[in-house]
């Protein structure tokens, strides 16, 4: 029955339902430790075709989860769709009429998959800091097991932005025969010292919150709200560009006052008050995030980012990692992204060229900074659409040739 309380756009995947899949086999992690059993929260959109050649994996970034597209609640007109809804749906770049799209909340996450906030079956308490450190390759390993479960031998494409793009890179290295196309967006082959520095500030702000309790805040029925807020505020600054912030905060930016009229002489030494729009904006964003995101997951994932460097297994020469495999690459960067700047994507392109791999590279002109990868920027959407149309044609004609 469609008693639609809200209007769901025609190009939306509509109402969706996540599934929790249980994995009972132990997963050996890069650190040497094991997770004996775990759950993964998964959402899928579209239909898997008869020869199972049209499956696409979407890998989320730091704060993402399995809910990439569509809506949950038909009664809530204010509900926002999944985090990459602009790209996923009928007729959208990742076209659900053509592809079977899979997105999961990664291990260690806090949106339903097993993570630090889950109950540790050995102790009956939450894992907290006892949760093992996870590497990007462990995520990819769990994603490969998920593919097995879903009956997918080879992905038509594996796609991700930022940390998601690093998972795509890892896929092409760990399971080169299991994907035909790798779309690496706004990512980097490894973090820079500056990237790690920002992550360290985020971690220190969480750990210095008195409510952190060495990561066992669950047992104290609290959470480090201020620490996570601060961590997210810092993170958020790195997702935006200077130009975008100028434009966003205050109509009077031409005078450089950013939402604060200093001519009124109302200067205060009160730091609880927000003088400038950007302050209240960051506070709001940070606090909203702190309510929904587990502090231990934030710590874990920033560590994962810092540790990501697949070249360590290849004597520092990442091109050697790509000597096997034949998947094609599409690498995309955004001009104003300074978290993972275009130079970082060009590094990856150079590595792929050295390995003589098929690669296309686009540098999209955009003011939105790192966040651009989540936004429906026309040239970006057109490029994804064109590329994915070719991928879809291959699925039709070759039935998933490898």
């Amino acid at each position: 029955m469609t008693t639609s309380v809200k209007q769901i756009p025609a190009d939306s995947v509509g109402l969706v339902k996540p599934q929790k899949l249980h994995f009972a086999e132990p997963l050996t992690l890069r650190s040497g430790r094991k997770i004996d059993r775990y759950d993964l929260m998964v959402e899928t959109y579209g239909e898997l075709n008869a020869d199972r050649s049209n499956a696409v994996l979407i890998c989320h970034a730091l704060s993402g989860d399995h809910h990439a597209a569509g809506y949950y609640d038909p009664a809530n007109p204010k509900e926002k769709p999944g985090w990459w809804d602009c790209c996923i749906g009928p007729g959208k770049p990742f076209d659900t009429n053509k592809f079977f799209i899979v997105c999961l909340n990664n291990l260690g996450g806090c949106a339903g998959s097993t993570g630090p906030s889950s109950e540790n079956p050995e102790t009956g308490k939450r894992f907290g800091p006892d949760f093992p450190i996870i590497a990007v390759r462990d995520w990819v390993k769990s994603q490969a097991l998920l593919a097995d479960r879903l009956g997918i031998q080879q992905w038509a494409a594996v796609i991700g932005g930022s940390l998601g793009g690093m998972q795509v890179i890892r896929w092409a290295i760990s399971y080169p025969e299991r994907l035909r196309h790798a779309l690496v967006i706004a990512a980097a082959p490894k973090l820079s010292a500056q990237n790690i520095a920002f992550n360290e500030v985020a971690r220190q702000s969480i750990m210095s919150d008195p409510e952190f309790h060495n990561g066992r805040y669950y047992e104290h029925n609290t959470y480090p709200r201020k620490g996570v807020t601060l961590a997210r505020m810092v993170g958020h600054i790195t997702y935006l560009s200077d130009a975008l912030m100028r434009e966003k905060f205050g109509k009077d930016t031409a005078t450089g006052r950013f939402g604060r009229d200093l001519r009124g002489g109302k200067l205060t030494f009160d730091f609880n008050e927000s003088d400038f729009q950007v302050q209240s904006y960051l506070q709001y964003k940070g606090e909203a995030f702190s309510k929904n995101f587990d502090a231990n997951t934030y710590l874990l994932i920033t560590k994962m980012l810092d540790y990501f460097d697949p070249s360590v297994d290849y004597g520092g020469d990442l091109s050697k990692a790509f000597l096997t495999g034949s998947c094609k690459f599409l690498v995309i960067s955004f001009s104003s992204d300074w978290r993972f700047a275009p130079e970082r994507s060009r590094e990856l392109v150079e590595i792929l060229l050295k390995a003589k791999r098929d690669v296309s590279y686009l540098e999209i002109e955009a003011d939105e900074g790192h966040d651009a990868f989540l936004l429906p920027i026309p040239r970006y959407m057109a490029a994804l659409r064109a590329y994915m149309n070719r991928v879809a044609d291959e699925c039709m004609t070759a039935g998933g040739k490898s």
Partner: protein
Amino acid sequence: MRADLVLIQDWITPGSRVLDLGCGDGSFLAHLKRTKNVRDLGLEIDADNIQLCLEAGVNVIEQDMDKNGLANFESGSFDTVVLAQTLQALHKPDEIVEEMLRIGRNCILTFPNFAYWRHRVSLLRHGRMPKSSSLPYEWYNTPNLHHCTISDFDALCARSKIRVLRRTVVDDKQHSSALMQWRPNFFGINAIYHITR
């Protein structure tokens, strides 16, 4: 497909790796892929052209060789490097030619011959910068920065010890004639070089 490209496709070995610098809409590479099964890669700076390359299923890299050079390409990593009708629009054409010879085993270049007799007449008789089908621009909006003649390019090859494997001189319709063979630098409109070192 542009006529100069029809001519040079015969110089491409089937199954080889081809790098097309300034690949435009990618139609030449798409054609080579179809007919010669080459491993294709194009370089392009125009967003619309890059989009067309993606639609055609051609590998394309957004890169400004004038600004960023070609250092990201390994020596000898391609069989043939193509530079069609772009040499004269580069800031440092001699350096790009050097880079092409480093990256490719052989290179194919096409450019308009500035010493074509009609161009000479335009300057000599009318005192105006030449305009023609191969040089369609006004002096103030031309993308061409370094006009050169067939004799100029031959001199560059001699000085830089570049081996000319083949040279064809053609008109707009890519036809050659006895006149063009006799005095290429006078009668030729477009020059096509196949070079190596």
